[in-house]
Structures are given as C-alpha cells and as structure tokens.
C-alpha cells in the first residue's frame, strides 16, 4: 500500500460485551457500514463470515465464554480498501503460525476453520497476539466499489 493515498472515507468502532448474541450485532453493524458503498452481495457475505469468525474467536478463545470481556470491532473505509480490526483483551495466542493452520483448533468441538475462512474471504489477515495480552486481528479487503 506504500505510496497510495490512504485517506479515510469513513470509520466506525463498535465495542460490546463478550456475549454470544453480540456476534450477530457485529455482523449487522459491519454490514450496514460496508453497504454504504455499492458492493456485490458476494463481497458482503464474505465480509460477514470473516467478522463472524473473528468475533466468535474473541468470545470463545479470547474470553473463554466469560461474558465480562470487551470485544472491539473497528471498520475503516479507505480509497479502494476496507480494513476491519477485531480486538480482545483475553487469553492471547502463544503460537500464531500454528493457530492459523487450517484445521488446527485447541477446542475439540470446533473445526479450526475460522482463520482459514478469514484468509479465504479477505485479501490480507494479520494477527497480533501474545499470551495474556489479548489478540488483534487485522483484515483488509480490496473493493472495486471503493475506488
């Protein structure tokens, strides 16, 4: 992105308690934000899955289903790019490379596909995390509609 004009066109930040019902809230808010530009239904669906996965991870793995945690979702529209950041102040991840392997999960009930879906549906996924320091997932998607 170096050299590109990165003027912020619009931005929002949503914070909520780590309750399961708020995963839907996050999807609805991000979808309403993103739909301010004319994008394809397919792009919209992909973004909703990516957000759903990242927020579910914050609640399930970050806060281990403790409803007192705070999850933060930031969305920013730049020229040509949408950036979505999902943050928690929960458990953190010791080995990020391992966590991002397809089918890797520390929870036997889950499929380990969350990060795979984020990577399939967004153009870039970065994870910043340390045990005890929480997790920040930064996702970017290039959208023709944003140009």
């Amino acid at each position, binding site marked *: 992105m170096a050299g590109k004009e990165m003027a912020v066109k619009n931005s929002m930040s949503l914070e909520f308690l780590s309750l*399961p*019902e708020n*995963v*839907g809230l996050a*999807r609805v808010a991000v979808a309403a934000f993103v739909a301010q530009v004319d994008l394809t239904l*397919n792009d919209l*669906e*992909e973004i*909703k*899955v990516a957000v*759903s*996965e990242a927020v*579910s991870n914050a*609640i*399930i793995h970050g806060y281990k289903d403790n409803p007192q945690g705070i999850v933060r979702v930031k969305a920013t529209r730049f020229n040509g790019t949408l950036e979505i950041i999902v943050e928690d102040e929960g458990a953190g991840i010791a080995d990020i490379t391992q966590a991002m392997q397809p089918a890797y999960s520390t929870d036997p*009930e*889950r*499929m380990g*596909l*969350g990060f*795979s*879906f984020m990577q*399939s549906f967004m153009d870039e996924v970065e994870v910043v995390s340390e045990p005890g320091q929480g997790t920040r997932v930064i996702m970017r998607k290039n959208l023709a509609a944003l140009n």
Partner: protein
Amino acid sequence: MQVFFSREGDALLARIKGEIDMSVADALRRELEENIERTETNILFLDLSEVSFMDSSGLAVIMGRYRQMFCKKGQMVILRPQPQVERLLELSGLSRIIAIRSKGLED
C-alpha cells in the same frame, strides 16, 4: 434460528431457518441430536434452503451430525444450500464427504 422436523417414510427431515452462528450452535446441535436418537432414523435430510447465514460454528454442528449418523451406519444428505453456504461446505472439504442435493425432498 428455528428447526422444523418431519418424518418422510424412514427418513428424518430437518428444515433449518435463519442464521447459524455460535449463538445458536449449541441449541441446534441438541435439537438435531435428540431428534435423531428419538426417531431412530438412519437417514437424515438437512434442508438448508432457508439458512441465510452460516459460519464455521454452523459447519461444526453439521460435521457432528454427519459423524453421529455415520457411527450408527446411517447417512446424511444436505438439501438446497444457498450459494454462500455451499461455498463454505466446499472450502471446508465437507462437500467431499457429505452428499449435497440441489433439490428439496418434494421435488
């Protein structure tokens, strides 16, 4: 999210309606599990035509029911997933082990 069950001969048809994510995954799992056991069916049809959103929490429930049917030597068939749900089934590899039909039972 809602699930509607009906018997179709020996088979059990479960029609799911709404969004499937972590907030409803446990309830969905329980309802499917109980109905599979209670009816002692060995064919489960999962009609996903009215599922408007699904993520990996939903796939895990489907995978679990596939295993449940498999272990009792039964089979499971997914009916009419919407395009975005079908895409998840493909990306996850589930479409390679679970039968998917683009038609409903009545068609």
